[in-house]
């Protein structure tokens, strides 16, 4: 290749650079409306839904839109009623000058009414559409999705972004309090498992609202049938594992102790016993004591023994409470059916159809081993110090 040719090629490449930038798909920031939250509520008509989009306003700090900074809210909400989600979005697209951009959608919120009717048929679009991401959080609103998306929060004005951050930080402690779209899809595909989705409640006061996660909604197939309150969520998360450190307070007749359980090692084994299938749970964890009140005139060893015993008792109680609750609803929120399938694929093939009848009868064997490893920076407490010294 001689020098002359090379120059021509170079010129061609440079020209191509200019005419082919992004081709037909260039999305400049001033031509898109970035959706931060998507809500689905039940409409009056059974076949239709009320779609709510929370769109964040793009505020330039420089340039011709200077005046907009710091005034008004940072988002606006659009609504449409339609039979499908994308057709609803198309409808909304005609109302605004910019095109709707779904790549940065943070949360998908279902209203409680819609959750009772079933959410499965609206899941398809979230999996199919390329703009949607499988890591998006899924939530159920205690009232309607619109209530949450229109709420303005103190720290993050934009409630969808605020919720997304909240769930992200929450999920570090309690992984069960976060449901990604992929988890939900995966559980729905398992057939025997009942998916759980966090519930968000909004309290509005003086214009600013506070959103909190108030529990987990239990879905049977794809319909809302009940919920776990935060007490039971803890009982649920003991078994689901994936929790780093869970605060845990115990009340005994001698006093009160605030502990936390960490370093949890959990084994749940599905087994076939003489009277049918049961689940055996082996729970190991370290207890660290954070605060002690009471326990006067007692030796350290005694206190530790009492604490350990009552920890185990209470843990067992919490686990069983949640388990029995789910048995009453006949909703396999733990995915035990899948555990059986994974362990005994051949046997489970026959059981799968009858899982709804088996699950309420399922037994659970719990074996809990706790050890007190950490007592903070003191060995003894204020009240018992002298006594224990005398005893030595």
């Amino acid at each position, binding site marked *: 290749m001689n020098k002359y040719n090379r120059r021509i090629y170079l010129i061609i490449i440079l020209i191509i650079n200019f005419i082919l930038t992004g*081709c037909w*798909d260039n999305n400049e920031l001033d031509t898109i409306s970035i959706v931060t939250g998507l809500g689905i509520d039940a409409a009056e008509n059974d076949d239709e839904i009320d779609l709510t989009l929370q769109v964040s306003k793009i505020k330039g700090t420089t340039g011709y839109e200077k005046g907009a900074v710091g005034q008004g809210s940072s988002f606006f909400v659009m609504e449409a009623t339609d039979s499908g989600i994308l057709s609803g979005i198309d409808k909304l697209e005609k109302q605004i000058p910019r095109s709707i951009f779904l790549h940065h959608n943070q949360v998908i919120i279902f209203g409680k009414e819609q959750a009772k009717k079933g959410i499965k048929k609206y899941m398809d679009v979230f*999996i199919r559409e*390329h703009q949607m991401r*499988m890591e998006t959080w899924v939530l159920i609103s205690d009232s309607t999705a619109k209530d949450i998306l229109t709420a303005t929060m103190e720290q993050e004005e934009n409630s969808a972004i605020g919720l997304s951050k909240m769930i992200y930080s929450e999920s570090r402690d309690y992984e069960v309090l976060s449901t990604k779209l*992929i988890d939900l*899809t995966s559980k729905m*595909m398992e057939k025997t498992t009942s998916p759980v989705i966090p519930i968000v409640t909004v309290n509005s006061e003086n214009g600013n609202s506070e959103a909190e996660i108030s529990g987990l909604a239990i879905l049977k197939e794809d319909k809302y049938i009940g919920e776990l309150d935060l007490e039971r969520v803890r009982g649920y998360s003991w078994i689901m594992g994936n929790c780093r450190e869970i605060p845990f307070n115990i009340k005994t007749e001698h006093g009160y102790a605030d502990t936390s359980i960490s370093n949890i090692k959990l084994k749940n084994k599905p087994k076939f016993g003489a009277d049918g299938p049961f689940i055996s749970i082996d729970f190991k964890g370290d207890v660290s004591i954070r605060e002690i009140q009471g326990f006067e005139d007692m030796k350290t060893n005694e206190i530790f023994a009492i604490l350990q015993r009552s920890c185990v008792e209470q843990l067992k109680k919490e686990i069983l409470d949640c388990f029995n609750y789910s048995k009453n609803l006949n909703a396999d929120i733990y995915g035990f059916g899948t555990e059986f399938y*994974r362990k005994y694929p051949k046997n489970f093939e026959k059981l799968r159809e009858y899982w709804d009848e088996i699950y309420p009868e399922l037994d659970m064997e719990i074996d809990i081993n706790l050890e007190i490893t950490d007592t903070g920076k003191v060995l003894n407490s204020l009240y018992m110090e002298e006594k224990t010294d005398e005893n030595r």
Partner: protein
Amino acid sequence: MKIDNGKISASQFMFAVACFIQASTLLTAFFISVTKQDSWIVSIFGFLIGMIFLWIYTALMKNFPNKNLVEINDLVFGPVIGKIFSFIYIYFFLTLSALNLKDMGDFVGIAIMPDTPTIVILVSFMCICAWAVRGGIEIVTRYSLFFTFTTSFIIIVTFFLAFNDIDFNNFLPIFNQPFMKYLQGTHIISTIPFGEIVVFLMVTPNIEIPKNKIGKYFTLGFAIGGISLILIILRDIAVLGNVITLFTFPSFETLRMIRLSSTLGRMEVLFAVILITLMFFKISFLYYVSVLVISQIFKLNSHKNIVIGVGIIIIIYSTNLYYSMIQHMEHGSNITPFQWLIYEFLLPLITLTVAKIRKISSSEEGN
């Protein structure tokens, strides 16, 4: 008569093989939809079966160290039947290039630039490939080393980054599907990514390796490619679980799941980068081979004159292959493997057997 006098070194050849196989590792949906969570087992089986193919090709290469596939066919079957066989290979190579081009176009069209007409992407892509092909084998394989390293690096890094989302329970239950599924899966995986290395028979005369070392380098390259494939499949199954069967691009979806913090997310761009670079390598290689076969059969003096023409044929062919992604997947898992088996296994095996029986060998002629 030799059309392309370019020479490639042993390591270039090795990385070309590795890169060629890695290019197929990104589009795994057609056998994952068959064998689901056991796809990694199937890919190990496929790898082992691929070794048999590899052995046949190596034997052919050793037997005819300075002849390419067309010349081997002529030598073994005589000018008439040999030409028919070579014509079959024209069809095979053109189809392969068109299929891969279509995969690339589909990916860009669906996932990155949905509003851009696919033909624009295909034409601009093929322009660069044509440029490389005009340069001959040296240019086509020059970047294989770089591409292989980039890809391997990205695969390993994403494996660690995805570690948070990995759940090893997703592999259970193992071996719980009908036997035929495993057979089908092994068949698909041994023919579609692994067997395609039959194209390297076309460049035998250009490889500067001592005869007895060919097998070693070929196997090494094959192993790099195969291990990358198995790693990618393990990662995808572990991250996505039972949802994996839904997606057309499982790896793309896996990388989308990676999120270390709000800043370090959106890793799927890495997938797009390696897919397009690897596809560039694979398509230009297949394109080069198609051009070479055609010019060899028609006894042209240089392959350069027909580069543009063949490129246009490939583009038009690829736009008319399938109507939809679903049909493509359906063919990929049910029909294509049987077709490919003929070109990748039966024909080379027949050639080798006939050559052994008739005791034809170009190396013994003492050139």
